[in-house]
């Protein structure tokens, strides 16, 4: 490794987004691309998703997460990407300077551009404010997957699964792989969130589904011994179990930005970006699930790839400057929007869509307005945690949008 050689692009995080960005950058002829990964193995979250389906978009076939991660890493290495393992980025500094920690101690590196791709994690018991005893045996799906797929550990025998997002399906599969038998799935909403496959799979595994039920208490002295749930009719039920798996409620792993200088969007909890994935400090870009909770590996992979193209243009001084044309602001029933701002739209490049998310099932009208003028509207139904895309080319008069006046995104329930 030539230390003196300037790093063109440093990428923080070797998950699908970071790796695909690195591969694309090499393909585009960028000289030195370094991926920094704090774990001792690259691949990100898919490393410990021992299950299907990964890889359709990328490799045209269905792979387990583990195999998929290995393939991605191999592709990156073949492309000439440097992957530095056991390398934690602990500070992102203005202008593209990073503070790293390795077994040799700390060191600072600089790169012309940086892509921030640290992914998401699930919300913890503490952050969910769940009542009850502070006992062992309460885990997020991600921790369970690592235990089961990476280290052959079995933290419990009969847990309850909290939540029915898609990741609950992974939780069930992870359990069955380890011969763990969940005793219940508990969902606060009156409908299962990931109807396929959770609704299909739970009966198959003979796991009772409790809808309209909220986990109100964890009970135990050393380890979990039971949970209390409350039905929407007020009825309280105790379920015996020896563990709790907290699924979903994803949150971007954006502490580096929060502790540093990049602006954060309180709605996504990720960095604020323009349509090129560019952050408030234009040396920094961001890609993958750091941008918003939550997308599939395939989506993140594609996002990394696209953003790599704009980074390459930027390195060649062919990207317009980050002069904010308009902010995209969410209100009324809309949970989040990405990107959060547009910086010039004349060139036909950049993200083609605005991505939206909603908290609950609703029917109604989605309206975008600028300076009190409706520039887009559509009737539709939205589902919790599912993506809604608005094509930028469908927005009326985007080219003549009023500068400094935000695009307001609202949803009027029917």
């Amino acid at each position, binding site marked *: 490794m030539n230390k003196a050689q300037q790093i063109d692009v440093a990428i923080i995080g070797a998950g699908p987004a970071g790796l695909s960005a690195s591969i694309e950058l090499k393909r585009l002829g960028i000289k030195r691309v370094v991926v920094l990964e704090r774990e001792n193995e690259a691949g990100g979250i898919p490393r410990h998703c021992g299950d299907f389906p990964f890889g359709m978009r990328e490799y045209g076939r269905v792979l387990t997460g583990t195999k998929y991660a290995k393939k991605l890493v191999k592709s990156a290495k073949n492309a000439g990407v440097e992957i530095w393992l056991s390398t934690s980025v602990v500070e992102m500094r203005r202008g593209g300077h990073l503070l790293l920690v390795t077994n040799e101690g700390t060191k600072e590196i600089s790169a012309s551009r940086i892509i921030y791709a640290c992914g998401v*994690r699930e919300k913890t*018991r503490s*952050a969910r*404010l769940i009542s009850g005893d502070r006992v062992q045996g309460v885990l*997020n799906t*991600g921790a369970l997957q*690592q235990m089961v797929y990476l280290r052959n550990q079995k933290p419990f025998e009969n847990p309850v699964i909290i939540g029915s997002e898609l990741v609950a399906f992974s939780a069930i599969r992870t359990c069955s792989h380890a011969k763990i038998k969940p005793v219940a799935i508990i969902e606060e909403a009156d409908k299962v969130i990931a109807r396929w496959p959770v609704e299909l799979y739970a009966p198959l595994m003979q796991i009772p589904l409790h809808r309209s039920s909220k986990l109100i208490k964890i009970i135990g002295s*050393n380890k979990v011994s039971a949970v209390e749930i409350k039905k929407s009719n007020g009825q309280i039920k105790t379920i015996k179990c020896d563990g709790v798996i907290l699924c979903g409620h994803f949150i971007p792993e954006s*502490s580096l930005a929060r502790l540093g200088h990049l602006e954060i969007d309180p709605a996504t*909890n990720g960095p604020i970006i323009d349509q090129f994935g560019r952050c408030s400090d234009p040396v920094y870009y961001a890609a993958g699930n750091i941008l918003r909770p939550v997308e599939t590996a395939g989506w993140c992979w594609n996002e990394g790839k696209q953003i790599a193209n704009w980074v390459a243009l930027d390195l060649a001084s062919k990207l317009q400057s980050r002069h904010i044309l308009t902010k995209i602001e969410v209100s009324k029933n809309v949970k989040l929007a990405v990107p959060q701002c547009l910086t010039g739209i004349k060139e036909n490049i950049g993200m083609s869509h605005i991505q939206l998310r909603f908290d609950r099932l609703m029917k109604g009208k989605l309206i975008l307005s600028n300076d009190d003028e409706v520039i887009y509207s559509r009737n539709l139904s939205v589902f919790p945690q599912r993506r809604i895309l608005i094509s930028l080319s469908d927005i009326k008069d985007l080219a003549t949008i009023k500068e400094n006046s935000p695009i307001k995104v609202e949803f009027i329930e029917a």
Partner: protein
Amino acid sequence: MTISQQQFDNPKQGELASDVFDIAVIGAGVVGCAVARRFTLEGAKVAIIEKASDILDGASKANSAILHTGFDAPINSIELACVKDGYLEYTKIHKQLGLPLEKIGAYVVAWNEDELAALDDIKAKAHQNGIKNARIISAKLLAQKEPHLAKNALGAVFIPDEAIIDPWSAPYAYLHQAIENGAQIFLSCQVISGDFDKDIWQLKTTLGTIKTRYVINCAGLYGDRLNKVLLGHSSFNITPRKGQFVIFDKAASNLANSIILPVPTPRTKGLVVCKTIFGNLLVGPTAEDQSSRSNSSTDEATLKGLIKAGIAKIPSLKDMPITATYAGLRPATQYKDYQIEIEPKNNWISVGGIRSTGLSGALGIAKYVYKKYSSLGQKHDKINRPKLPKPTPLLAQNSKRAQNSKRDWQEKDHGEIICHCEMVSKREILAALTGALKANSMAGLKRQTRATMGRCQGFYCSSHVTEIADSYFNKSKKQKLKNE
């Protein structure tokens, strides 16, 4: 490790140690650890007996981690004397023992006219208690010093010497020093009963009999029970007072430069907002009386209330993620003051009701107790040059806890970073799993290293930490079985 009913009914027969100790300290909370250190340094042969598998499993497991000056302690109380003395000794020894100290000062903030009117009395009391540099500051100055504080703050008493410390490494260091100088620790060892023959106590424990001339009851939440069972009487009764906390993300820590205190009520010091030595921001504790001595559960409604109260004082907390929630139990009694009593005819000292200032007071309490003990004519040969605890990466890191100074991860050869949120290295984890006070449980390991206690609460590392720790826990389990 929990103690089985069978073990409880039939304490192990046979002697656990052949020697007769001068002193048996029952309970390894912060008070017991400090008392064991003091008596050891004064030359006594000390046993410290703890029922849990790791020390600090009771009241000392969760607190606000403030080193109080005593500015608001009851005038002329034992508590005041001990807290002042404890503060003094901590500031003297912390560097030697590798313990952090951040003197960030505290503001007792008035949020309404009544509270504003009360500031004069608070300052006067502080002065009377010997905290002469306490002073009243205007709303304007307060806003300059604490720009994130809500704008309706009307003024404050400033106490420059209030400080924050690490609630766990301090008692660990006290006990490490005691052990280094000859004290013996018995873990997973519950005192069940005892016989006294006017000279020597035979303490029956779940691990066997321990003989000692004097007993010092530092059993915290169980102090009254221990008195009743072994002495037949207790002059105080414990009613645990729970305190729940919310810990905000590290990004929130610069929202308060000092400790933000409310004007206290007679019952509690009230809700504190302050940064922790680990670089987070804490809001709490509540004060809820309960009968259970072990139930430190949290509840959603109370935690939501804490968050709301925190935001009312520091509006920018609104967008800050929450790192942790927990609760601690104060060993409160029917009295306000510490209950420190000596019964010379029973060779018994009871150190009870160390309710809400034990972390600050511990070193002072230890001195106070030793003075009482020696005033009865009890004497030992003081250790002239007491040894310091052996340096380990763990002890080395304690002094570096304070932000902006180097920790183990910044040094070479730390192994690898295991807990990314708290930046805990493999070398630190291994240090906590070996040595005189090695962790015997995940809870103990967490208290010594903070692994899994950061923002992701183990999402990324709990499997890794478990893997490393389990191999050590299993090793000692096997060892135990072999010995039995």
